């Protein structure tokens, strides 16, 4: 029973982390039909921002305040990656609208460049981020050990999802984003500036990637290619959940996270990868457009 609960918690924790990465991808793909392979590097940049904030705190801020660096680094990572995302959108992505395959190749190239820049600034070896002391330790509920770090990530992701949901459903800007996702020409003819919506969405998606990078520093060391490890799982979530639907992305992340944690526990990490992949292929036989999809009469 304890083992089951522990695995359930680990699965939830892994799902929530993947969800944070997949959200940004899902929004941008749903809206612009652009596959952003450089999204993984937003995670990497977010993680390095956290590392840099930590270095600055070590050298410039009194030691008693050191523990607060992590709280500060989350908004900083969000802002930095969102700005980089905006820059990428303005300089590259806007030429690639509705060309998913081309955007995939071009952003892959961008990703290589980002990784090389990171390698030149921070060096090829991994760097470690010291977690603030208030995140060390764990709480035991019904003899299941829950580390604070993982709980923190879980809460962070919940806040992000709720915030995003609020933004998309309640605010004017978010509703515009929804409208453009559903029907671009119609939204444009009703006076919505679709270019602006696209840029905002891309910045928002990249910012979420940055926050994911922040969370990643709690789980392990940071290297230039750290994002690539997660990006493909995140894409699988987007495919499984259905494109452009937050609800679908959440469900997809839960499926993949739980399935992979449980199979990994029962067998090995290798088998888990194979099982998850087979599951996705089989699942798509049943629902080719993902868990949640918009009904449409449009053919292609």
């Amino acid at each position, binding site marked *: 029973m304890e083992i089951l609960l522990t695995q359930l918690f680990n699965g939830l924790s892994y799902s929530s982390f993947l969800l944070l990465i997949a959200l940004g991808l899902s929004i941008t793909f749903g809206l612009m039909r652009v596959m952003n392979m450089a999204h993984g590097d937003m995670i990497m940049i977010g993680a390095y921002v956290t590392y840099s904030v930590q270095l600055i705190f070590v050298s410039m801020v009194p030691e008693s305040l050191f523990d607060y660096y992590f709280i500060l680094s989350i908004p900083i990572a969000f802002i930095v990656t969102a700005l980089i995302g905006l820059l990428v959108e303005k300089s590259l992505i806007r030429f690639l609208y509705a*060309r998913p*395959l081309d955007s995939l190749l071009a952003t*892959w190239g961008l990703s290589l460049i980002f990784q090389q820049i990171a390698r030149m600034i921070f060096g090829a070896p991994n760097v470690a981020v010291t977690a603030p002391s208030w995140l060390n330790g764990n709480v035991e509920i019904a003899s299941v050990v829950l580390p604070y770090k993982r709980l923190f990530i879980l809460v962070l992701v919940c806040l992000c999802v709720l915030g995003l949901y609020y933004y998309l459903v309640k605010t004017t800007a978010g509703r515009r984003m929804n409208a453009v996702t559903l029907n*671009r020409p119609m939204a444009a003819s009703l006076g919505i500036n679709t270019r602006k919506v696209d840029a905002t969405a891309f910045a928002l998606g990249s910012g979420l990637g940055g926050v994911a990078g922040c969370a990643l520093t709690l789980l392990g060391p940071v290297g230039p290619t750290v994002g690539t490890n997660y990006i493909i799982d995140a894409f699988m979530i987007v495919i499984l959940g259905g494109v452009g639907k937050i609800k679908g992305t959440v469900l997809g992340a839960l499926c993949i996270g739980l399935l992979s944690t449980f199979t990994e526990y029962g067998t090995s990490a290798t088998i888990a*990868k194979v099982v998850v992949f087979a599951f996705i292929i089989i699942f*798509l036989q049943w629902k080719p457009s993902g868990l949640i999809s918009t009904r449409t009469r449009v053919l*292609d």
Partner: protein
Amino acid sequence: MAKSTKISFSILFLILALAPLLMSDFRISLLAKFLCFAIIAVGISLIWGYTGILSLGHGVFFGLGAYAVGMYLKIQASPGGIPDFMQWSGVSELPLLWKPFANPVFALFMMIGVPVALAFIIGFFTFHNRIKGVYFSLISQALVVVFVTLFIGTQELTGGTNGLTNFTTGFGVYLTHPVVQKVLYYITILILLLIVLISLWLTQSRAGKLLVAIREGENRVRFLGFNPTTFKVFIYCVSAAFAGIAGGLFVLQVGMISPEMMGIIPSIEMVLWVAVGGRYSIFGAVIGAVLTNSAKTFFSESYPDMWLFLLGSLFILVVLVMPNGLVGVAQSLYAKWFRFKTSKKAGGTSYDANTNLQ
């Protein structure tokens, strides 16, 4: 077949055939490796340029072909028939999976058979459900992750991260002998020639025209009474077979194969070769593979740090500035200089990717 294609291929193969007279053995062995890559590129041009399916997973087919031949060579090279890495993992008898690979004919057969079988399974279950475009690309990329993890994870069967290496003899000859290497180079040229001829014939045929039709409007093809799934699975299998053959030739020449060579980055680089040369042209695919890899060798020898920047920029440049690759650039230059002559031919295969969003 267009006259220009005939002429360009004749010149290319003439240069390749004469190259050993002018270049050192080391350069020739590099060139032979690039020609293996050109074989993969032809397959990718068929599936991506002609049919519009972007596969980011051709590294797997290349790897499977290479491992099939590698297993045979490894058994040949191991005294007692049990490969060294198996002995380290405490395996005392050749696993059942390996046993048939002691037979070279079987190994060569599996070099094509395994990739085709995998392509058939994956292709059927995705294309059948009309999973296409970027979804298929991402699934094919996930396939790479699965296979790389699988090959690294089953160390006692596949040699793990190190892969298969330290081959000595195969098919009764010493593989590292200079004469054997030169013969292998010519065999590679012949196989490339054969594959180019098959592909050109295929693209001229009715089936080839249907592939282009699927690229331009899959539903229209369906409404005309054809089943696009059949054609897509077929062309996916063909290009997987080409990649498998290339893998087998690669392992004979280079003498090693490891999971790293079939990973995500090599797989997507394969697509880049084709994009650089010109995805709508078989000739473009061949020269794209040779030129991109020559550039890679040159830059990684001289400026290793700059190579990734160049590679990254190349991806962006090819997509934004020259979607039809070097062949496209050559065509438009040709059209500019001899405008009066070729006003019709120049536009050839321009492909308008800016379809509307909905």
